[in-house]
């Protein structure tokens, strides 16, 4: 059996940005964007689930850092086949850049304990940095294999991975423990399992249970309905390395870009307009 941790993130759906996504002052209106399971983290979960298909004793723990609401994706992962979820949530994490995030996650991984493999999405769609995976690996002192699209083989302590590169691919072999980031070309994640949905739909974190007393009772009776929730102190982290203060990068300025508008000539689809344009492009040697 393998012990696997999957790093996941709840992200605003930046791919479907509506008109009210930006506030008048130029900042992002997060509330206007739906929160989703970061797409490549789902690929990462699938790679982990495929290991579990092959070695059913495998135990998969999902780990996320975020607001209380991020427990939604932990439940989503439980519905799809993960065994446990951990939510890392604390005001002290606010404003973390990738390095401070990686530090916090690495502390939580240490607290989870022994592991053979960590899977993570290559990058999250809200930042597209692809930095957290490798930085967590560095903090844990383990090797990384980035851009995985397939786990070719896993036997004992040896894993072979097919990596997707910009132009081409590589097959690499490494020894566990290591961290693998999943590329979007890895298999899509399987859908929710109906039985698991019934089983875990009332799984909650402590913060979520605060106001709902019968959920509190059911979590007491059925431990699997309790999603682990940790704060900065729980994972024995150095406060100086967390949040805004622990982030080497600072945002100096955020702005809506104002393009230097050109004076455009507006044409219609009429034959006359199109022919005029093509003649113009040919005459000034832009084409032809």
């Amino acid at each position, binding site marked *: 059996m393998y012990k696997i941790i999957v790093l996941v993130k709840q992200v605003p759906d930046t791919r479907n940005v509506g008109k009210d996504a930006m506030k008048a002052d130029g900042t992002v209106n997060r509330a206007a964007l739906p929160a989703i399971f970061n797409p490549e983290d789902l690929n990462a979960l699938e790679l982990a689930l495929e290991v579990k298909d092959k070695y059913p004793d495998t135990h998969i723990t999902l780990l996320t850092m975020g607001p209380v609401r991020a427990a939604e994706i932990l439940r989503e992962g439980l519905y799809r086949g993960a065994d446990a979820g951990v939510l890392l949530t604390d005001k002290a994490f606010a404003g973390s850049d990738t*390095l401070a995030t990686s530090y916090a996650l690495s502390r939580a991984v240490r607290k989870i304990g022994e592991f053979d493999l960590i899977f993570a999405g290559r990058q999250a769609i*809200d930042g597209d940095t692809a*930095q957290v995976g490798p930085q967590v690996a560095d903090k844990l002192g383990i090797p990384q294999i980035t851009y995985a699209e397939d786990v070719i083989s896993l036997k004992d302590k040896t894993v072979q991975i097919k990596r997707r*590169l910009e132009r081409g691919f590589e097959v690499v072999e490494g020894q566990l423990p290591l961290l693998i980031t999943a590329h979007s070309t890895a298999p899509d994640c399987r859908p929710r399992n109906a039985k698991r949905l019934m089983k875990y739909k009332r799984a909650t974190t402590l913060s979520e249970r605060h106001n709902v007393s019968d959920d509190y009772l059911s979590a007491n009776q059925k431990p699997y309905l309790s999603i682990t929730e940790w704060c900065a102190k729980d994972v024995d982290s150095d406060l100086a390395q967390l949040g805004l203060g622990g*982030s080497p990068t600072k945002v100096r300025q955020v702005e809506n870009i104002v393009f230097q508008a050109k004076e455009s*000539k*507006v044409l*219609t*689809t009429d034959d006359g307009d199109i022919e005029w344009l093509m*003649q113009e492009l040919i005459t000034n040697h832009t084409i032809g």
Partner: protein
Amino acid sequence: MNNVCVYCEIEEGKIQDVSYELLTKGRSLANQLNVKLEALIIGDSLAGMGKEVSKYGVDIVYLADDKRLYPFTTLPHTAIAVGLFKETQPQIVLMGATSIGRDLGPRISSSLTSGLTADCTDLQIGEYEDKKAGKKYENLLYQIRPAFGGNIVATIVNPDNRPQMATVREGVMKKEILTESHKAEVVNIDVNKYLNDADFAVKIIERQIEQSKVNLKGSSIIIAGGYGVGSKENFNLLYDLAHAIGAEVGASRAAVDAGFADKERQIGQTGITVRPKLYIACGISGQIQHIAGMQESAMVISINNDPNAPINKLADYVIQGNLENIIPKMIKYYRKNIIAPCPLRGGPRG
């Protein structure tokens, strides 16, 4: 000490264009800061590489030459870069936002506890005031990048930690030889000082690098399609026009994500940056992250149903209407008016 250093990437014995582009940018940053430009080259059989990069204005070239160092694997390259940077203390480190740079950069930044900004579209030198701490900083690297799916542009700084690290995609910066005669001091690194056996934990079993079939950067006319093209089938209209007028077909991220076009055709912050003579944007709304990759086009034509598409503001010509109507007419009137058509390039039909 406190110089600007560029990590140079090697593929099949050649330094990659993105590295030359960064050396060119690095030279201008080094001039502004009045420091030296350094290049770090890690690989196998590097003889002559020093001369190759020095033309771009490099003052010091560090060569880490060992047969175990090519092809790239994460840990040995990290160990050498981290070991060297601890000694040389560069204030700025630049690398390509490539498969390699995006794997290596975060590892180095974590190891050195330095800030790293991915996919910058511009780099400048400027000052920064931390009002809370009441501190002023001069000559910081402004790492400028679209954020949040390209809806905003952020300027990131690393006030206290060094080096200030940034990755930049291929094509974003211009590659320019400083002078053919520029000479660099070459320093051969004793790699065994930094490496140990555990660094070779991940082994490459098989490797296939394909030559790109798409040459967006080298194309003087680009026809790019966005989500508004509607389908993969409709992209054939673009290939038809490209075939007729001798152009290459590009795509926005939304079109690539929707499966209308291959990833290697993606133009924008997370794709490739282009500067063609003519850019024909078809069904592209014009998110910042896309504009970042095409705003230096000499002439822009936007074909769009939506008269308020942001990209129209950048366009010299805006054609309002459906691609299905417009593109066949463009082909027809091109053929009618051109004396000798030369259909050389194109996409799947080409």
